[in-house]
């Protein structure tokens, strides 16, 4: 399939009366990729998606799809497929009627329509269920019908608005993988809105992290996870330990009176925040901290089976969380005096 569906947003703003939903977004998204808009509820990610779909008109700014300005084009002439949060299946039509709706509107011939519907039913593994009523389907099947319906017209852009939020956790994970494989198979440009960072990490080529109507960071999932650009991103994409310190300007930082080295990002001086993921921090049994470590008292220990977690009070505000796999875990007791080591390569400066 040819690569199409490159999207460019320029100075996009959306206000509802006094509420600013999207506060100025510039973004260029490459075609053929799966991109997720990730953020807490109310961050403007759904409004962005709805503006791209043509269901909301931006207050300011332009939207370009493959360099065509589509800002003023109504939704029904945008060549976009969308899966809605409620799925929005048509209750008066059966499965085939739902999937074939777009073709019917375009005036496709009966035969071509029937064969295309069969093709799509195969694509989403619903072979032979074309005659079922929507009310007879399970949640996962409905999700697949909504996907097939949105893809029926081979749109330039495939949009999904929290499409899996109504499903239970196991099914959700399974469908995340399925949707991702389907997107890779078709090579279709896709944007998915989600508030679930695991979902974004599982599926995306590129994550756009949003907060309060603005973009916080854009990057591949692992890069966003490992090198968060702001304390918000660090806290929203997984858990993190945020340590506030004083940068000397020569690459070393003083945190609560203990010297720290960080790799990159500390060439400025003044107050900085350092983010360290729980699984990158390590417990050291003796309470004599060296460089890059803090002394502390173990407050709470929990073994989750797949994960072992230890909460340590290091006297730096919130408890420091240290996590690891139970296999290489040093047993510690609640109340033990320990030191927590934050390796230099795991320390990311998130503000300067």
């Amino acid at each position: 399939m040819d690569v199409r569906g490159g999207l460019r947003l320029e100075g996009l703003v959306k206000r509802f009366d006094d509420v600013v939903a999207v506060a100025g977004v510039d973004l260029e998204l490459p075609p053929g990729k799966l991109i997720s808009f990730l953020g807490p509820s109310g961050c403007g990610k759904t409004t962005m998606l709805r503006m791209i779909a043509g269901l909301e008109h931006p207050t300011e700014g332009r939207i370009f799809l493959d360099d065509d300005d589509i800002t003023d084009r109504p939704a029904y002439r945008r060549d976009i497929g969308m899966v809605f949060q409620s799925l929005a299946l048509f209750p008066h039509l059966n499965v085939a009627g739902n999937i074939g709706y777009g073709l019917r509107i375009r005036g496709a011939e009966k035969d071509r329509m029937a064969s295309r519907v069969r093709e799509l039913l195969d694509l989403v593994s619903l072979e032979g269920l074309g005659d079922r009523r929507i009310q007879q389907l399970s949640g996962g099947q409905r999700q697949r019908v909504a996907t097939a319906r949105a893809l029926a017209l081979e749109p330039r852009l495939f949009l999904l608005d929290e499409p899996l939020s109504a499903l239970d956790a196991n099914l959700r994970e399974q469908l995340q993988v399925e949707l991702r494989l389907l997107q890779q198979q078709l090579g279709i440009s896709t944007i998915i809105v989600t508030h679930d960072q695991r979902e974004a990490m599982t599926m995306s080529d590129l994550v756009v992290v949003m907060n309060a109507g603005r973009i916080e960071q854009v990057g591949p999932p692992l890069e966003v996870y490992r090198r968060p650009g702001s304390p918000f991103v660090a806290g929203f994409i997984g858990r993190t330990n945020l340590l506030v310190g004083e940068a000397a300007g020569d690459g070393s930082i003083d945190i609560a009176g203990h010297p720290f080295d960080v790799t990159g990002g500390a060439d400025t001086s003044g107050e900085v925040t350092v983010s360290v993921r729980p699984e990158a921090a390590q417990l050291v049994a003796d309470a004599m901290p060296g460089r890059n470590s803090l002394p502390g008292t173990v407050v709470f220990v929990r073994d989750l089976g797949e994960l072992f977690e230890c909460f340590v009070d290091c006297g730096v505000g919130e408890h420091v969380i240290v996590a690891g796999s139970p296999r290489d875990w040093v047993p510690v007791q609640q109340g033990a005096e320990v030191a927590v080591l934050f390796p230099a390569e795991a320390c990311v400066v998130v503000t300067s």
Partner: protein
Amino acid sequence: MSVREKPSGRTLGVLAFPVGMLVVFFLIPFGIMVATSFYHRVPGAFYTPAFELANWQRLFQPVFLERALFSIWICLLAGVVCITIAFPFTYFLTRMRRRAHVALLIVVLSALSLSEVIVAFTWYILLGRASGVSNILVWLGLMNQPTAYQPSFEAVLLGLCYIAFPYCILTLYPQLTRLDPEITEAAQTLGASPWRTFWTVVVPIARPIVMAGFLLVFVFTLGSYLIADFLGRPEHWTLSVFIANQASANANVPFAATMAIFLTLLSLIVVAFVGLIESRTRRLM
């Protein structure tokens, strides 16, 4: 659980009230009416209990059958007109901003506080020559002299639609409010213009409730007699006008009862027929 529980004393107690109301206020009066339709009318006086078929034989005169058909025709027409206006009206009402939405709804529903007498009188004046709307057209220079729009068929139809309109909206409103806006949006992302969305998605989904609203208007207007009496000539009178005239002016209660039962049966047949068409077409979809 598929085992049907035995109704407890409590359930029966709860049911007793509505069933009792139904018996006292519907079944018993209807029974009295059926009995009355066989009573003997005493000219110049009232009626005496009897069992005679005179009233029923009189019913099958062409004039009454023709009136019955006319009643059904004009009330079905009122149903069509009401639904045609009320459905898009209610649909766009539910898609308005909350404040405008509530304000309009209050205006429409306040019309419910007007009795049929007031509605009939008001339209009688508005459509009349002396102080009706045509005077405004004359004042604006659009007409040379005022004219009367009643009595006429259109005036009767207008009056019937006017009294039934708020009820029609009340029937449509709950379901149209619950219609998920994402469903119409989904149709649009699939290439349907707002107009095609309305016809291919909104109308088919709302069809059962449209049918219900239509039947409500039909049955409701079939029972109205003041409108046709005030705004129509005798040839625009519905069977209800004749029933009222027989009962009050002619004091012929047995024959009025006969016609009332006849009208009830006719409307039952029409309702059953429409319901049958509805379930047929739904199965075909």
